[in-house]
């Protein structure tokens, strides 16, 4: 009898031991957006601040609507960059919006302004286009939509700071040649179509050399009256 109880006790302890052994939960992935978007980090930085690579843009602090529009365009292939198209092809829209909101909410500091590698004349031409536009050429000032501090406007006009000149000129070039498009009326395609190659170079150099404004947040929706309709920005 005693022996039987001994075995029962032994079995229980053994069972307990086994159970404890198996009950240790396997380590789980952190349930955070930060962990989910690690795929973005090598090119865009841990908080979307950008990296050394001159062609990969800063994402942090851009309005969520703008980022969501870009993620959607990469998802469908309208905006063509195979490494991005590949990553986003099978992600649902709701998730793309969450990713956009995550990076929109980040506020890492801007990088130090670039030393402009262009002449003073070119830089002045850039400043003139950004702040006044070129009425004769049909080019509105960048600041008329992107804001006097160039931090963009909710929900879908991006800030233009913290980007390198190479990225800005590549994107303006893509708008000009029609390889980057957006929902119609495609205002950026219209604007970029009126820029010359020298204009693009000047605007890119000037923007990349801007110091950080005190507040990096995009302006609230409706702050600026756009000079013409823009399919991506509800008025």
């Amino acid at each position, binding site marked *: 009898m005693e022996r039987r109880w001994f075995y029962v006790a032994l079995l229980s302890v053994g069972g307990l031991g086994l159970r404890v052994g198996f009950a240790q939960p*396997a*380590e*789980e*992935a952190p349930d955070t957006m930060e*962990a*989910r*978007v*690690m*795929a*973005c*980090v*090598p*090119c865009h930085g841990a908080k979307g601040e950008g990296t050394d*690579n001159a062609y990969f843009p800063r994402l942090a602090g851009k309005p969520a609507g703008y980022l969501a529009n870009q993620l959607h365009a990469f*998802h*469908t*292939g*309208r905006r*063509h960059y*195979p*490494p991005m*198209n*590949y*990553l*986003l*092809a*099978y*992600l*649902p829209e*709701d*998730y793309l919006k*969450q990713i956009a909101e995550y990076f929109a909410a980040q506020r890492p500091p801007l990088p130090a302004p670039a030393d402009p590698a262009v002449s003073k004349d070119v830089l002045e031409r850039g400043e003139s286009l950004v702040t006044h536009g070129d009425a004769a050429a049909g080019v509105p000032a960048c600041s008329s939509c992107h804001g006097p501090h160039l931090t963009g406007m909710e929900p879908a006009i991006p800030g233009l700071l913290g980007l390198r000149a190479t990225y800005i000129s590549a994107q303006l070039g893509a708008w000009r040649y029609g390889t980057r498009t957006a929902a119609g009326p495609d205002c950026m395609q219209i604007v970029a179509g009126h820029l010359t190659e020298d204009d693009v170079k000047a605007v890119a150099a000037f923007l990349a050399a801007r110091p950080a404004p005190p507040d990096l947040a995009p302006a609230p929706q409706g702050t600026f009256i756009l000079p013409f309709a823009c399919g991506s920005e509800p008025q």
Partner: protein
Amino acid sequence: MTRCMAFRPQWKSALSMATLAGALLLASFAARSEDAKPAAPDMSLIEKGQYLARVGDCIACHTAPEGKLFAGGLAMPTPFGTLYTSNITPDRETGIGGWTADQFYATMHTGRFPDGGLLYPAMPFGSYTKVTRQDSDAIFAYLQTVPPVRQANRPHDLKFPFNNRSLILGWRTLFFKEGEYSPDLNQSAEWNRGAYLVEGLGHCSMCHTAINALGGSSESQAFQGGLIPMQNWYAPSLTSDKEAGLGDWSLKDIADLLKTGVSARGAVYGPMADVVYNSLQYLTDADVQAMAVYLKSLAQPRPPAAATSNLPGFESSLLVALGKTIYDNQCAVCHGPQGLGKPPHFPPLANNQSIQMGSAVNPIRMVLNGGYPPGTSGDPVPYGMPPFAQSLSDDEVAAVVTYIRTAWGNRGTPVSAADANSLRSAPLD
């Protein structure tokens, strides 16, 4: 972005447009005389058809990016030229609005259009031939209810001599066997349901059976795996436990992988993410379970072969040492120092067949390109693997892939910097 996975039998495809036009013309005459559609559509039949169209993944190929549902026009690059998928909306002029259920079944079943014209075998009629008449009718009834889109089919752009459709006759003789699925009475109803779905509408063999130089796949090598042409992803064997053979997987893990895209044993990326995203996540639990039962039964366990390397031992040991350093610094944070991962979201690498199998294409590509498993109802906000193409050199990619293929008891072979380099240019769209 090309989302279709069935562009693998790359000399297969839908039909030449001249014939389609002819077929549609004939079909519309035929249909006018026998407009015998029921006055009120049978909702249950249509719902069934919608479900079966999901199982068959019609949408992945017959809907272009930003295109209208089922209006076709998706480009399918093949080694033989580019094919464009066809409009299967009920538009009478440009779609299949003039077809009858008989004609639809005959086309799916025989790979011939109503006028006798031959389908390119990119359309998986070698699998769809196994679909029952009843299921074919349900799919047809559903397709007749989607919004008609007037969009003419774009002619294929095939190189000589592949633009000669009579070549398909030869292909059919070698590789096509017509006939509905015939149940194996020695197996359970569940197993047979799984086999019907996998071999029929699921058309899994389009990728998971090796394709030969003639663009065909042999039934004797069914589900033994192969490199997907044009896409440069390796579709692993479903029969060998050294690859994706599921012999030692639990049914739950198989079902999780198919329906949610992630599991305790691994996750899907690339072309298989497409299949889960567009098709498998919509399957009922019972159907996924049936597929799991059948897929598990396909496994033919073999004693593990000794790892053989094509690299000299000294070089391999250098690779492994460098690989371990890279792994510990950059990979272990998610996949764990012992490769156990944090499943299901950070997949285990130890004892993960897709890491160790003969072809190193998939692990190299995952390191270069990273990837997200599909967002599904079961895993709506998946975790992404970062791409390392920018930050790791060819030598470093080779080293870390060699390490994960040989560490922790994994029995893969080393890979070379040349292997890594050759996949940098692999297509991503």
